[in-house]
């Protein structure tokens, strides 16, 4: 493994991205993946004080739903264990949505405004105050910032010859991201995952590129993909430093 990593975005959207990283060992790649899931803290509702709940659900059930609402997390201003208070007051008929939550700090608010919490019928009312706590996915899955994080090897595709006229027309399915002979990085969605579409009439060979990984990172909205990734790498570095210090004589 080198000291330098080459990182580039293959696709980049608001809440998901594909990153190509060269110079990683499989162990480091998996470490980064796990850190994104379990080590980057996000806010999540942890305690709810119900003033009134005449809905059809028990307080505990409404509480569990509230815990799963992703909250935006300004990590630069908060530390693990800090709390922010949110509140909701809603009278039926109507649906209480995550967007109805009022927050004490505008930077900590539901990442999506349209998550239904509960449907209230005529005369039903929901009123509570909730404390959101900053904690890590290691503590509880509701604090996970990365929701669909994984990686694949980058695959290099080489043209090795022409396909014979009567060769078996079996599809050649690849998934993820490929590197062409020109060095272009192409997502397999572009040719419907079938190499025959990209290289018609050609015989191709596919092999893994050593040390090159394509991460697919999806955030629940509490953090941006970039911040999630950088914080995960920071947490790995911190733990490595801690280990080095602990074993130093």
């Amino acid at each position, binding site marked *: 493994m080198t000291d330098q990593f080459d990182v580039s975005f293959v696709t980049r959207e608001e809440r998901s991205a594909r990153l190509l990283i060269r110079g990683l060992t499989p162990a480091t790649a998996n470490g980064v993946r796990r850190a994104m899931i379990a080590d980057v803290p996000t806010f*999540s*509702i*942890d*305690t*709810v004080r119900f*003033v009134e709940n*005449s809905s059809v659900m028990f*307080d505990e059930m409404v*509480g569990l739903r509230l815990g799963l609402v992703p909250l935006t997390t300004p990590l630069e201003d908060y530390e693990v264990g800090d709390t922010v208070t949110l509140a909701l007051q809603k009278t039926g008929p109507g649906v209480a949505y995550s967007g109805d939550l009022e927050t004490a700090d505008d930077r900590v608010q539901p990442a999506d405004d349209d998550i239904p919490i509960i449907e209230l019928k005529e005369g039903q009312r929901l009123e509570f105050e909730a404390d959101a706590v900053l904690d890590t996915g290691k503590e*509880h899955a509701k604090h996970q910032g990365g929701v669909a994080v994984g990686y694949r090897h980058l695959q290099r595709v080489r043209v090795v010859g022409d396909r014979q006229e009567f060769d078996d027309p079996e599809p050649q399915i690849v998934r993820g991201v490929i590197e062409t002979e020109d060095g272009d990085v192409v997502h397999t969605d572009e040719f419907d995952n079938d190499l025959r579409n990209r290289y018609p009439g050609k015989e191709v060979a596919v092999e893994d590129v050593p040390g090159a990984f394509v991460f697919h990172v999806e955030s629940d909205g509490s953090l941006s993909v970039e911040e999630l990734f950088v914080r995960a790498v920071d947490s790995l570095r911190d733990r490595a430093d801690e280990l080095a210090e602990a074993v130093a004589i």
Partner: protein
Amino acid sequence: MTYKCSRCKRDVQLDEYGGVRCPYCGHRVLLKERAPDVKEVDVV
């Protein structure tokens, strides 16, 4: 203890001698109301 009569919807105070019966309409089905205090729930 405060209950609510399921027929006439009036608040009913029960004591140990009166038995379970609404003093206004005589209905025997009484509903227990939610306690007015704030309930704290841990989300786990």
